[in-house]
């Protein structure tokens, strides 16, 4: 019997903080400006300069720590991580290697080992030679990004598959986005994720040799990269080999993994305590504020929505994006007695789909306010219009911004509430369609669909499906 292997995955996530200025100097942070316009002696590491920590960055970091359920350290310290590269003008990065600002947290099912503050490197562009420094014709450095405040979040190896990493990563991104402390945009690099991957026999407590998958710029690619690497490791072991410690890059265009460096080429960072900085000692008030100022975070919000009856999937969708959550709650507020489950389905289903169909419009630009949608939902719930008509009303509302009442009136979609009239149409439909009528009578209930369709066609969708069904069954003697 062959051994079953499982993947064991831990993540290191870098989050660029959206402070106004850099981590250790007063230079402005802005994405997409001319190269090297936001620099000063400090972030260029000219001789004699000293770093001064950005208090706002410390505050943002503490908020992240609190949101991840971490213990916030009353004292944290900075260290120097030495490495020589053109993107790093001091030849060391200031980071927190020994006493980070937050430890022992949890988000969802994943434990957080710690989170620490550090500074980002400058941006390098190597021209010629395949984009790597060796063999390139020239290397250009843009120091605008150098010194951007970063929070690195390190998880315990609690994840087991690429799909789980994607889902958890999305939860993490939604959580940090809601704090308003980062753009968490993976394409722009304000959220970056490395994965440490190993495999082990199912049931084992030991960790296998891990490889590190570097810096992928979407959760979809991370998922694919991890799956590719897990498959590779399992194959290596199945063939009697051993996984070797190395750093890998996943190319999403080819689906291939490339080795960036082996264990032998690993850096010796020669960490030492940063003598230029005194320890970070947040005041008890600052620590308290980081915890008490937390907004309702996605995980908690999803739980709350589920408690009021929203389906699990819709609750997650609404919780990940605060603007959708706010919209949904606006609908509940405007529509008295509205069923949260129904409202959630309209928001995450019909409205989201319609916005996507119409120029992929973001919710913020929607012409349909929560109150208008609530009115529409109520009209359907109260059977003033059919569900089908509701959808076409919404289409018009999304495109023109019209009120639901006026769309219903204009298009004459008011449901046929005169049961005498509807009954006449039902009888007519049975007469016009003898074949399905006969089938229903002889026990094939599915055939009733054709008759419902005929009624709907005759009423142009203005009939209530339930009522049509009831009348049909009555007249077919069921």
């Amino acid at each position, binding site marked *: 019997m062959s051994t079953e292997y499982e993947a064991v995955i831990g993540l290191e996530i870098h989050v660029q903080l959206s402070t106004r200025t850099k981590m250790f100097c007063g230079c402005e942070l802005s994405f997409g400006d001319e190269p090297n316009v936001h620099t000063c002696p400090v972030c260029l590491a*000219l001789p004699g300069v000293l770093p001064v920590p950005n208090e706002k960055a410390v505050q943002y970091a503490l908020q992240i720590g609190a949101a991840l359920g971490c213990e916030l350290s009353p004292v944290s310290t900075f260290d120097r991580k*030495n490495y020589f590269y053109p993107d790093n003008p001091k030849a060391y990065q200031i980071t927190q290697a020994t006493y980070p600002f937050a430890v022992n947290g949890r988000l969802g099912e994943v434990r957080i080992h710690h989170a620490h503050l550090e500074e980002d490197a400058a941006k390098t562009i190597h021209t010629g030679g395949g984009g790597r420094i060796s063999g390139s014709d020239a290397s250009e450095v843009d120091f605008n990004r150098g010194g951007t405040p970063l929070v690195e979040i390190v998880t315990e190896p609690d994840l087991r598959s690429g799909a789980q990493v994607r889902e958890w990563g999305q939860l993490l991104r939604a959580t940090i986005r809601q704090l308003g402390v980062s753009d968490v945009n993976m394409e722009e690099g304000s959220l970056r994720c490395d994965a440490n991957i190993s495999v082990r026999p199912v049931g084992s407590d030991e960790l296998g040799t891990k490889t590190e998958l570097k810096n992928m710029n979407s959760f979809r690619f991370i998922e694919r990269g991890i799956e590719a690497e897990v498959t590779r490791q399992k194959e290596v072991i199945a063939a009697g080999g051993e996984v070797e410690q190395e750093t890998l890059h996943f190319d999403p265009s080819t689906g291939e993994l490339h080795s960036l460096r082996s264990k032998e080429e690993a850096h010796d960072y020669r960490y030492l305590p940063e*003598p230029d900085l005194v320890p970070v000692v947040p005041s008890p008030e600052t620590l308290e504020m980081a915890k008490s100022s937390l907004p309702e975070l996605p995980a908690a919000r999803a739980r709350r929505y589920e408690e009021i009856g929203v389906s699990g999937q819709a609750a997650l969708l609404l919780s990940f994006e605060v603007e959708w959550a706010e919209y949904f709650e606006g609908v509940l507020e405007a529509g008295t007695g509205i069923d949260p489950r129904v409202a959630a389905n309209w928001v995450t289903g019909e409205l989201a789909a319609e916005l996507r169909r119409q120029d992929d419009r973001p919710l913020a630009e929607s012409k349909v306010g929560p109150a208008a949608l609530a009115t529409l939902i109520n009209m359907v719930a109260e059977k003033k219009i059919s569900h089908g008509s509701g959808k076409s009303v919404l289409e018009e509302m999304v495109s023109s911004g019209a009120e639901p009442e006026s769309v219903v009136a204009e298009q004459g979609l008011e449901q046929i509430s005169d049961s005498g009239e509807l009954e006449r149409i039902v009888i007519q439909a049975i007469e016009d369609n003898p074949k399905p009528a006969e089938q229903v009578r002889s026990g094939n209930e599915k055939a009733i669909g054709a008759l419902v369709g005929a009624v709907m066609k005759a009423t142009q969708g203005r009939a209530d499906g339930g009522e049509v069904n009831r009348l049909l069954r009555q007249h077919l003697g069921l």
Partner: protein
Amino acid sequence: MADMQLLAASGAETAAQIAAGEVSADEVLDFWLSRAANDRLNGYLWKSGPESAREGGAPGGPLSGVPIAIKDIFCTEGVPTTAASRILGGYVPPYTATSVSKTAAAGMPMLGKTNMDEFAMGSSNENSAYGACLNPWDTERVPGGSSGGSAAVVAGGLAPWALGTDTGGSIRQPAGFCGIVGLKPTYGAISRYGMIAFASSLDQCGPLTRNVTDAALLLEVLQGRDEMDTTSVGIEGGIKAPTAERLDGMTFGVPRGLIGEGIEAGVLARFEDTLIRIAELGGEIVDIELPHAGHAISAYYVLAPAEASTNLSRYDGVRYGLRSSDEDLLSMYELTREEGFGPEVKRRIMLGTYALSSGYYDAYYGRAQKVRTRIVEDFDSAFAKVDFVVTPTSPTVAFRLGEKTADPWTMYLSDVFTVPISLAGIPAISIPAGLAEPDGGGPELPVGFQIAAPAFSEQKLIEASHALEQAIGFDGSAALEGGAR
């Protein structure tokens, strides 16, 4: 005013003469510029022209018109700053160190940038890439280091006073060798912003002056919290000019266990004389122990090189200073550092890199940190019993050029009394205690007397030093004329 009077006047006296209208600031500046222009000690690496010097000192400051020499480790906007290294040859910083901005704001024109050991690594000034600096008492001898240029120009009458930096004794030891006053304040008393880093947890700016009063005046200008240096806190209450004449009620601890082997007879004699002076002034001499101070040099030569190895990694030839080759990136890096750094700097980079390497950290850096903590505790216990700890500043008087360059360890031992204090981060001053013959004979040379005090008790330290200085009555005029051709 006669030149001799200008030359003999202390910084404080010159400031008073200018304020009283006895001499104009222009006259003073012209006098000192012409002295500096005739530097025969190789004390200056760069000298101000009349225009640039005048621009430097703002009028109306407390010390307006008294020029100052600045160690070439301080960055000065528009003025070459090399830290006496080839690797910073031609480097002109775009900003000015906080300490230099403060002396300028106090009205002091900058006379020039003084010679030093490369990146402040050395005890003789022989590690300068721009030639050794000479001792004005005997030009065949070293002025000490690393602030050798600052000490030599003050002692040799090429500047009224100067700024230096002290990492393991770099202000106190050259002050002792040159017969002047050198004060290393508490770590954190003065901003380090703009001081080219050697060992960041130890580097501290301080004055080199003719007397203790001048040191007090400069310290008051320099001290203070700086937003650009989070490790700076300043000295609460500031610093006033000293007035004490007696030492009644004060206790002076002598770490006899430290003052033993390797100390010159003449140095020991002047040290004992000074202890008698202290007693005559009403001070009490007490034997104390600093049980771990004997390990200070070993710990220091792990910690300081470790920090230096990371501080000096940025010199890669890309953004400023020397660039040796343009062939390809790697050989440019390697050749620039090969040609740009001198042997002592390379030795310390290698020592420090090794000490921080994975697998060696605990054995070297971690261990040295523990020794440092023990030394801090030693001083804490000492100061529970005494007000001050006193030692000779150095075990020898100024040695001959080339005498110790072949043996780094012997050179390092010349800081045996100053290094423990640096590791403890506490303030200490070196004042001239008289002259002594070197072992092996020859003309008499200055001997320094070091007084250390608890952190941030500079005012007390300055008062006691002032009283003792008055009693000693050291005369440094023999060297004063000799600095200029």
